[in-house]
């Protein structure tokens, strides 16, 4: 089964995302900030990462930059999931190595659509 790491400081968002992604047959691991996510990736690289931007300890963008430097860190497909919706922010995320970008609020249809566009259908 494919594994997805859901990184968000909101427990509610993690729960919502988990339900949708489990229906898409992903095994889910959760992290509440970028540092926790990095530690999880060092233990085992997931196939996909759903990533919030603004989080305590380490932001999503800092996590992503770090991840892409790690051994095997180029492998996970990363989909941002954030309230940041400026074109400049989106471009920054893509430059840092994001594969897709989803703006909150979202629903199951949008999440599935974004994962499909990222090649995770």
């Amino acid at each position, binding site marked *: 089964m494919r594994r997805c790491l859901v990184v968000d400081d909101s427990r509610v968002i993690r729960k919502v995302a988990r339900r949708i992604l489990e229906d898409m047959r992903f095994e889910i691991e959760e992290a509440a900030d970028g540092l926790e996510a990095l530690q999880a990736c060092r233990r085992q690289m997931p196939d996909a990462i759903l990533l919030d931007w603004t989080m305590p300890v380490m932001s999503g963008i800092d996590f992503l930059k770090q991840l892409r430097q790690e051994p095997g860190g180029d492998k996970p497909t990363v989909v941002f999931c954030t309230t940041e919706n400026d074109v400049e922010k989106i471009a920054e995320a893509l430059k840092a190595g994001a594969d897709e*970008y*989803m*703006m909150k609020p*979202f629903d199951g249809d949008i999440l599935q*659509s*974004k994962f*499909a*566009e990222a090649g995770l259908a």
Partner: protein
Amino acid sequence: MLNEAELALIAREVKTRSGAVLTREMGGAIELRLMPLARREGFGSVHELIAAARIRADSALWNSITDYLAQSDTRFFRDGAAFRRLYTDLIPAALARRGHERIRIWSAACSTGQEAYSVAMQIEEMREAGLNPAAEIVATDFSERLIEKARAGLYTQFEVQRGLPIRKLIAHFEKAGDLWRIDDRMRAAISFSTHNLMKHPGVLGQFDIILLRHVLPSFDLDTRQAVMSRIADALAPQGVILLGEGETIPDCEGLTFSNGIAIRTAARAAA
């Protein structure tokens, strides 16, 4: 809740105007979709709206009711495989057939325009790839309300996240307050107009590719056959009709159906 007589009347009037078949099971959804129209027209309920439509001498209210019940469920790059086929196969084949002439593509029943803009983005990407495709895109819908939205090219954050890859969003759209506006080049690439599939499309001319997707299932068999026959008249020799995922077409003179597309294989009798 709408009663059976009201639903039957709405179904009859809508079928006459747009060809769409409404069923009793859709009653709740019909009422929900007509509530904004009832409010706009100053009525206290959908019942009052229907009563007024029944007694008004002109058919303006029935036209509005049909408009508000128009199919508007669409998304960018809907059925991704169909768009990959357009990009790699159908558009290049049409360009090759036409030589240096411009090809014509018709998004029939385009709703709020996402399908037509998806094609325009593909044409633009072909241009960027150095293919220099000459193409004219025509997009029609019977609903003036939907065509106005399509022409404006303004979409909500939800709409631009359904089917539109993020790189295409930032390449072709700009923020406009809470909405996203597709750029002027994409808007200029498409001629939007109203056209009812119940009428012959003669004025629109002939097309190399016609997108007729997720439209036929809303018609009964007789209407489907009549629509296909009219659409086939607008198809250039060797032109193709691209259908929605899983859709098939009724038998139609001069058309061969295979693998999601109908190909014009023979001349048709004059309409």
